[in-house]
Structures are given as C-alpha cells and as structure tokens.
C-alpha cells in the first residue's frame, strides 16, 4: 500500500492544484512536494527496516490479456524515487520568482509528471511500466509547449514524436515477450525467469536499446535533446535532464539487462562503443557552444554517455557507479540549469560570449555556481567523483583502452566547464548596464541544498551503495 | 404451379425491375420500379416461408421508405431529367466493374460448398411465433436499442432537414 500512497500523493496534489490560483498554487505545490518528500523519507526508513515487502502491491487488472497492477520496490527503485521526490521541491522552489502564466496548470502538470515518474520507477509489470513511461511524456510536452521559448512548436513536436517512436519499438518488444512467456505475463519476475530464446534476443535488444537510447539520449539518437533543453522552460528542462533521462538509464538496468542478457552480451560492444564515442563527441561539441543552455545540454549528453557505458560494461562496478552517477547527475544538472536560468533571467542574454563580470556583482552566486561546476567536473569529495571513478573503473574492467578514451571526459569536462565559467562569470562585465542582483532567498535555498547534497554524497557515497547493492548483485551474479 | 416457376418468375421480375431502377431516366420511375422490385423480394420471402418478414418488408420498405423517397423526389422537383450524364467512358467502366464484381462473387460462391443446405424437410423458421420468441428473448436488448437508434435518426433527420434561420 505504501507504493500506492507514493503514487497517490502527487496525483491528488496535481488535481488539487487545478483548483488553486495565482500565488497560492506555487506555495501549495511546494508544500505538496515537501509532503511527498517527507513520505519518501518515511518510505526509506520502512525499506531499511522491513525491505520490499510493505511496498509490494499486486492485483489482477485484466485476465485476458493478463495484466497485473504490480508495484514493488527494491533499492534501485527507491533510489530513483528518492531522487525524483528530492528534486521536485527544489524545482518548484526554483521557479518562485519567475513570472509564470497560469501557474496552477503549470504546477499541476509538474506534479502529474512526478506521479508518472514515480510510477515508472516502482512499476514491476511491463504493461503498467509502459503506461507510466508514456504518461510521463504528456505533462512535459505541455510544459514545453505552453511555457517554452522560441520555436517551441517545432522543437516540442520533434521531441515528442522522436521519443514516442522509440516507445513504439519498446511496445513491440513487450508484445513479443508477452507471447513468449508460458503464462502470458509481463511481470518483471516472470520476464527475468523466462528469458526469450537467444535467437530472438538480438532484435529484442535492439528494440529496447533504441527506445532507451532515445530517451537517455545516447549519440546518435540525441538530436532532439539540445534544442528541447534550450527551448523548454527551465523547470521543464530540469525535469527532463534531472529525472526523465534517468528513466532511460534506470530502464536499461531494470528492463534491458536482466530481460535480454544474451542479446546485451552479444551487442554490448556496440552499445558501449556508442556511449563512449558519445562522451567525447558531445564534450568536444560543448567546448565551442556559445549558447549556455545548449552547452549544458551537450555536457549532459557526455555525462549520461558515461553512465550508459558503465551500465553496458555489465559488471557490478559499472552498474553501481551508474546508479551513483545517476543520482549525482540529477542533482548537478538541476543546479547547472538553475544557474543558467538565473543568468538568463537577469541579463536576458543566452550567449556565453556576451556575458562576464558576474562574479564582481554577485559573488555568492558565483561561488555556488563554482561548487556545482566542481561537482559536475568530478572533483574528489563531490558526488560526481565517486560515480565517475566507479564508472570509469567499470569500463576499465571491460576494456582498458575504452576507459582511457572515456576518461577523456575528465579533461574535456574541465575544458568546457571552466571555459564557460570564465566567459560567463569571471572577467570584466561586457554587457553595459548589467543589473545583476545577488541571490534571492529561494535561489539561496535551492543552491545551498544542492551544494550540501553534492558534498554529502561525495563524502558518504556508501549510503547509495548500501541501498542498491543487494539488487545489483542479483543481476550481475 | 411448380416452385421453380414461381422462383424464376419472381427472380426475373426482381432483376428486370432492379435494372430499370438503375437505368431509368427519371427518378420518379426509378422509385416506382424499386417498389416493384421490393414486392418481388417480398414474394421471395413468402416462398421461403418467412411470412412475418414479408409483411414487415412491405410495410417498412414499400409503405414507409419508398413513400418517403417519393415525397422527396416530388418535393425537390426531381421528376424531370435534371441529372447531367456521365461520360460514356465512366458508364462503360461502371458496367464493367459491376459485372466483374458479379463474376468475382459468383466465383467465390462456386468455390464454397453448401452441402447441408439443400431442401430442408420443414421450414417453420419464418413463422411469427418463432421470430417473436427469438426477438423477445435472446435479442431483447438489441431490439430495445433499435428504438434508441430510431430516436437518434429521427432527431438527426429533423435537425438536418430543418431550414436554417438566415
């Protein structure tokens, strides 16, 4: 029943928000996301004490086709649920002093998104999972479409259709798997114990892989992403980059690797090769980007490329690292986009070249921006380091040279991040009459929380490892 | 009077009248020939021992539908030959297509086996009580639903045919 409550709170909150107006809706949204966060904390204590049992919810929905409403929880699910529910209050708070039209609908969509994301992470029946997977696309479509920037019609449509096309492939794969199991079921446990014949695993792998690769995105399926990140309102971008792309990486571990292990083994080298190539490719592109949000988008491609490379290394180290890095990247990327938003909001200038001298007028902002950048370039004792260390080691266990190549990310990451920081924050102001007030209270709260999370998980990564290791061991044994 | 003779007479009547429906110049003749055709089909029903349907058929088609058509033709003043003619090519194509469809259907029919359906002993299936029993037991719900359909059709017809205000 706890699982249902996790779903019910944001859903109810989403509906409730539709009846609020103006300033009330953002306060209400904050309170409700905090309630959900509190409940998640409670769920964490329950999980630690009693394991997955209290979260298990299994009811038959339809006998033919055989569909169970099956929610459950293991360490990995809980980690992703925590990430989602931890970031949502921050994302809501980050929009506090922004002018948002029709805020009640905006926040309602965000909470609906939270509902769908939680659903994706705790669904243990393929059909239910698929429903939530698609459900998550709807609110973000409307958020980017209604509150987005230039070109939003075209960009949002591209994003929507691209990801939907990927999902279609996944649906085919699920339909095939459904017929393949003796009991005709898509339950996760059934799927992993009745694996498809190796002859079919190849194309099942590709169907799943392309679906997830588009969502993650792995180069070359990434072209929807930079435009969408740039166009979507910043809160939407945070949802997309912070949580939604983790749906893809999460699904790799949950639905791809245990379900079609032989297909993955056969094509592992291509998947890993694409991921690693994507790291270098996106990093190099990011170096010369002049648009701040687009630069961050490419950096995000590079980071998730490393995550997927670690996952496809198919060893405990890589997967454990990927989970840590998923969590870390979620936090860091939200922080980075928030900083970009703060800059854009005050200067109306999206261009890296035209900025500068912010440090002079807003030292606090500059400091916290630096802290987040440090997390993102994986400095030791920040959350980014542990993940990157383990991911690179995971890739190393797979192939030494590949890890050297992937390791270029620590050099190139520093190049584009510091170059961007120098142009945007340091130096003398380039813009005339730049009005740049230092952080407002809500911005302070968000950035400081993110900063604390960065260091906390950098110093105590074991909190994540202890949570997820039992599950990963069952997969990698 | 052998049943064959009755069948062939009725069949010839229905085919000829049907052809006249299609080829008559004036709509009013088409309507009248269609009525003839319906009567001949009702005759077939009687031959097949479906007396109830035969009666219903005459009441509904000849009595209601065709009267409605007739009214429309007259109301719209269509009884004169206003229809522009199609080109000969299209007429030719229409006949060829119709003929080919017939051939295909006949061919399909020939390829099916109808062994069990030759000359049954007794045919009481069309009697009123049998049809009524079926209609008011197994098909109770659809039967009642037809009334809903009729109301919908009625309202639709009224709305569509209503003269617009401006």
């Amino acid at each position, binding site marked *: 029943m706890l699982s249902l409550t996790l779903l019910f709170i944001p859903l109810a909150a989403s509906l409730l928000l539709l009846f609020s107006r103006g300033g009330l809706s953002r306060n209400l949204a904050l309170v409700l996301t905090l309630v959900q966060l509190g409940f998640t904390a409670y769920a964490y204590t329950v999980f630690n004490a009693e394991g997955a049992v209290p979260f298990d919810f299994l009811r038959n929905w339809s006998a033919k086709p055989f569909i169970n409403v099956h929610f459950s929880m293991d360490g990995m699910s809980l980690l992703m649920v925590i990430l989602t529910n931890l970031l949502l209050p921050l994302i809501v708070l980050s929009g506090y002093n922004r002018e948002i039209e029709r805020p009640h609908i905006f926040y309602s969509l965000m909470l609906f998104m939270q509902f769908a994301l939680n659903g994706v992470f705790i669904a243990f029946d393929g059909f239910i999972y698929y429903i939530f997977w698609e459900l998550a696309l709807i609110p973000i479509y409307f958020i980017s479409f209604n509150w987005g920037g230039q070109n939003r019609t075209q960009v949002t449509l591209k994003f929507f259709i691209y990801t939907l096309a990927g999902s279609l492939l996944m649906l085919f794969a699920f339909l095939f798997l459904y017929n393949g199991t003796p009991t005709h079921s898509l339950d996760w446990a059934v799927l992993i114990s009745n694996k498809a014949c190796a002859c079919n695993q190849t194309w099942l792998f590709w169907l799943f892989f392309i679906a997830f690769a588009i969502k993650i995105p792995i180069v070359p399926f990434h072209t929807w992403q930079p435009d969408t990140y740039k166009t979507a309102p910043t809160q939407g971008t945070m949802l997309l980059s912070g949580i939604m792309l983790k749906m893809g990486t999460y699904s790799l571990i949950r639905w791809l690797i245990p379900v079609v292990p032989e297909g993955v083994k056969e094509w592992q080298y291509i998947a890993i090769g694409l991921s690693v190539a994507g790291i270098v490719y996106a990093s190099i592109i990011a170096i010369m980007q002049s648009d701040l949000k687009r630069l961050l988008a490419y950096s995000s491609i590079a980071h998730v490329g490393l995550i997927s490379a670690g996952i496809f290394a198919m060893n405990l180290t890589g997967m454990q690292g990927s989970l840590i890095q998923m969590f870390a990247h979620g936090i860091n990327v939200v922080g980075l986009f928030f900083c970009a938003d703060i800059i854009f909001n005050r200067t109306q200038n999206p261009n890296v070249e035209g900025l500068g001298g912010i440090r002079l007028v807003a030292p606090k902002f500059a400091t916290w921006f630096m802290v987040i950048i440090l997390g993102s370039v994986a400095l030791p004792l920040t959350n980014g380091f542990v993940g990157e260390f383990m991911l690179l080691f995971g890739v190393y266990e797979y192939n030494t040279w590949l890890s050297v190549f992937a390791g270029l990310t620590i050099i190139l990451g520093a190049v584009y991040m510091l170059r961007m920081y120098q142009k945007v924050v340091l130096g003398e102001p380039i813009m005339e009459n730049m009005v740049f007030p230092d952080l407002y209270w809500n911005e302070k709260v968000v950035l400081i929380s993110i900063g604390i999370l960065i260091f906390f998980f950098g110093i105590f990564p074991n909190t994540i490892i202890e949570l997820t290791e039992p599950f990963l061991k069952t997969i990698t044994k | 009077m*052998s*049943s*064959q003779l009755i*069948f062939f007479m009725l069949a010839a009547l229905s*085919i000829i009248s*049907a052809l006249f*429906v*299609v080829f008559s110049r004036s*709509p009013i003749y*088409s*309507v009248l020939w*269609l009525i003839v*055709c319906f009567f001949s*089909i009702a005759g*077939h*029903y009687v*031959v*097949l021992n*479906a007396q109830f*349907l035969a009666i*219903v058929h005459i009441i*509904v088609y000849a009595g209601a*539908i065709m009267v*409605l*058509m007739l009214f*429309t033709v007259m109301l*719209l003043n*269509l009884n004169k030959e206003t*229809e522009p003619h199609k080109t000969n090519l299209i007429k030719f*194509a*229409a*006949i060829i*297509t*119709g003929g080919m469809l*017939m051939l295909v*259907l*006949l061919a399909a*029919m020939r390829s099916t086996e109808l062994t*069990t*359906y*030759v*000359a*049954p*002993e*007794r*045919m009481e*299936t*069309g009697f009123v009580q049998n*049809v009524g029993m*079926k209609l008011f037991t197994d*098909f109770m719900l*659809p039967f009642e639903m*037809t009334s809903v*359909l*009729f109301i919908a*059709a009625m309202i*639709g*017809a009224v709305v*569509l*045919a209503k003269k617009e205000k401006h």
Partner: protein
Amino acid sequence: MNELVEHGNPQNWYLVLSTILFSIGVMGVLFRRNGLIILMCVELMLNSVNLLLVSFSAYSGNTEGQVFVFFIMVVAAAEVAVGLALLVSIYRNLASTDINILSKLKW
C-alpha cells in the same frame, strides 16, 4: 405453400439471385450521379443481402438469420431517414443532388 418448399429449389439459386441484385446495386451506385438514386441502389444492395440471409435462415432452420434481417431493416429505415434529410439539406443549399458537386472536401 408448404408443398412448394418441399419440392425445394436449390439454395444456390437464391445465392445467384442475390449476387446479381447486389451487383446491379453496385453498378447503379457507380453509374448514376443523382444522390437519391444512389441511395436507392444502396437499398437495393441491402435487400439483396436480406434475401440471402432469409434464404440461409430458411434452409438451415435457424431463426436468427431472420432476426438479423429485421435489424437490417431497422438500420435501413434509419439510414434512409437521415440520408434523405441530408439530401434535402444539400439540395436546399446547392440546388442539385448531383454528387459530383460535393467536391469541397479534398486535399
């Protein structure tokens, strides 16, 4: 009347007959441009199918075929009512029942 049946005509005859009637209906639909006559041809096609259903019902001793005919009649009646209403409305606006005039819905 029973003796007529007992001598029995082969059911194929009915099949052929209704096929011919159906084809004539189709030909009419293709041949004519007057909406009213097309509607009538559609009725003709429906009736050919009705005939087929009744013949099957009679020869197989199953009443349900006739029940279906009954429902088809109901639908036909409803269809004619709506169809004629449409036709009247079209005629009122365009002063014609020629279906080729109705070519606005393209591309």
